[in-house]
């Protein structure tokens, strides 16, 4: 039995005629300590899978099992890092982390909690900005603060919902390495949502693409069995990654093609007109005539 299991999960939103299926027949098994990347076009339901594991959304059919127990709600053992950071702007870096620590380790003494908060912040190298509010932080620092808040709960599972997609390429690679460092050190199970194939190749053990929905299903997985630490340069230029990347991209492109074909199924009739180059030929029909007034037309 795998550590995280999604068995025949289907989810839809709305009801009655307004209902739309988002996910259909999702089967996903993740082993303990594994690093999984979910890849797909935006709007295909990646975040819904994340929310299913986090316990914020419940399946209409099928079941979500984490560590042998059915998911009935959010819990500190499954830490979710939100796409848009979700820091509270009225708290500084320390207090944003303290919000989590004070809640989950409420039994511990104040010094123990303080220690935990500072450890988590130090792990993402934010100690210098300890008392800055989110408004004073850059995008990368905010995301690190968000990661620190999740790490401080010491979760078994780290759910990263497109944590890096809003960052610039340089900051992104720095935080990628930080996440990998944390993973190496603490060995959580990580599920990462991304729309960047290279990010998946660099970080994950397995890449699982989502088909274009709705409703979306999981595509064929690509196992990245390369030794770590991986070489960025090899990923972008090397032969060995080329095949893997092609495999993922082929699936995604085929999906896009399918979607396009589906939308072409409905024929659209275009008016049979040819554009006229008025720089050379002035339209003769109206030459020498003033435009008619409304009264004259009627």
């Amino acid at each position, binding site marked *: 039995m795998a550590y995280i299991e999604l068995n025949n999960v289907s989810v839809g939103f709305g009801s009655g005629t307004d209902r739309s299926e988002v996910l259909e027949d999702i089967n996903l098994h993740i082993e303990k300590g594994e690093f999984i990347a979910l890849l797909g076009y935006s709007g295909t339901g990646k975040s819904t899978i994340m929310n299913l594991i986090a316990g914020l959304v419940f399946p209409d059919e099928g079941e979500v099992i984490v560590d042998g127990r059915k998911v009935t709600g*959010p819990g500190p053992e499954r830490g979710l890092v939100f796409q848009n950071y*979700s*820091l509270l702007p009225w708290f500084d870096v320390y207090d944003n982390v303290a*919000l989590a620590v004070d809640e989950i380790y409420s039994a511990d003494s104040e010094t123990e909690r303080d220690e935990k908060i*500072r450890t988590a912040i130090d792990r993402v190298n934010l100690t210098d900005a300890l008392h800055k509010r989110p408004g004073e932080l850059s995008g990368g620092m905010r995301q690190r603060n968000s990661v620190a808040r999740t790490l401080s709960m010491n979760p078994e599972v780290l759910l990263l919902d497109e944590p890096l997609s809003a960052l610039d390429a340089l900051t992104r690679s720095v935080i990628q390495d930080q996440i990998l460092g944390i993973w190496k050190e603490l060995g959580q199970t990580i599920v990462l949502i991304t729309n960047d194939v290279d990010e998946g190749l660099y970080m994950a053990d397995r890449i699982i693409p989502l088909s274009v929905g709705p409703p979306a299903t999981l595509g064929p997985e690509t196992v990245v069995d390369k030794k770590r630490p991986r070489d960025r340069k090899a990923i972008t230029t090397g032969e060995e990654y080329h095949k893997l990347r092609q495999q993922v991209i082929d699936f995604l492109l085929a999906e896009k093609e399918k979607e396009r074909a589906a939308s072409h199924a409905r024929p659209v009739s275009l008016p049979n007109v040819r554009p006229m180059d008025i720089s050379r030929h002035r339209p003769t029909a109206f030459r020498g005539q003033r435009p008619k007034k409304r009264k004259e037309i009627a």
Partner: protein
Amino acid sequence: MSTAATPSKTGSVSVSDSNQKPERKRFTYNPNRVAHTLTKLGLGYFAPFARLIGKDEPAKQLKEIAVNTCLPIVAFLCFVIGWSILARFVKTDSVQIPGPHQSWYALTGTALPGLSHPFPDSVSGQEAPYFADNQGLDPKSINGFVVAEEIAELNYQESQQERVDKFLARSREAEAEGDLEKAAKYKKNADTFADKTYQGNKTFYDQIWISLLTVAIGFIIATLVAVPIGVLCGISPMFNIALNPLIQLFKPVSPLAWFPIVFVFTTALVATPPSDSIWQRALWTSAGVVMLCSLWPTLINTAVGVASVDKDHLNVAKVLKLGWFKRIWKIVLPASLPLIFTGLRLSVGVGWMVLIAADMMAQNQGLGKFVWDMYQNGDTMSTAQIIVAVFVIGAIGFVLDRIMLVCQRLVTFEEQNI
């Protein structure tokens, strides 16, 4: 970890220390900082002046001042001229709409230099003061009014003391004659006079303070009622659906309609206070009316603010499994503070506006009563004082609004929507 944090902390302190040292030796005027502070305090209007003093782009500042200062001044002057012209045409048998000069006289008690006396027919002003010891001020002007009310109170107490002394003397006489019964009667008379307090009007300045106190009481009670109910409405759609008709029904009701109801409440609930106490029933009635009318903007804004808290922030609360109280206190309330304060700002405005009517009805010793009394006087000078009161009411309302604006800015984070 703490060792890693301490150097950075001390580091930043030492940096700011070294920055401040030259400032301590020689005061340097930083126009930019002063301008920013002024803007933050809601006095952004004065920022160009601050920059001009610091010689920061003087040409640009002069241009800004020309637009932002000169235009309003020109408009105000146009208003004053139009006012003084139009005022001449509105006349009844007893009252004339006072012009700017008459209003100025009502405020200061002195005529503008170079102009003839604005009230030639009334008490002859500077030349023959109404009270000999009134510093030459017309007692009917506000400045004179302040002194006049004080003098009236002093006179009252003096005559009161005379009576007390008289009765005490008689009582002593009767005692000397051996008529103890008569002596006791005189003594009792003396006591009744000694117990009596001055029942006349308060001075204009006292009335301003009482008005502010009334609004403060009404506003605080309104906030204490509106914020919790608003939070409940925002959190629970059911609660909101249940209360919405009541809110919509009572929101547009005029303060004048609330007055009789509040009056019954205060009469039933507030014991008659001693007559020299400021906590009169009228004050509570007035505050109650203010409260009932200024409740709604805060309530509605709080409800909207709480209902529109960022979904992601609520998800954070869910993932962290925050308890109900912590969720409200640490996430929902801070997130909706800007809107709550918008509501509070509107409430203060409504409260101050309603207060004058409430004071008039309840005869609370505030600005409303001042206006009412002057209206009852019904002469031109009193009407001029009403105009002064109108300006004072407007100015205080403006200051209150600015104070609330600063509060609103303090609780709003620049990046509220991250």
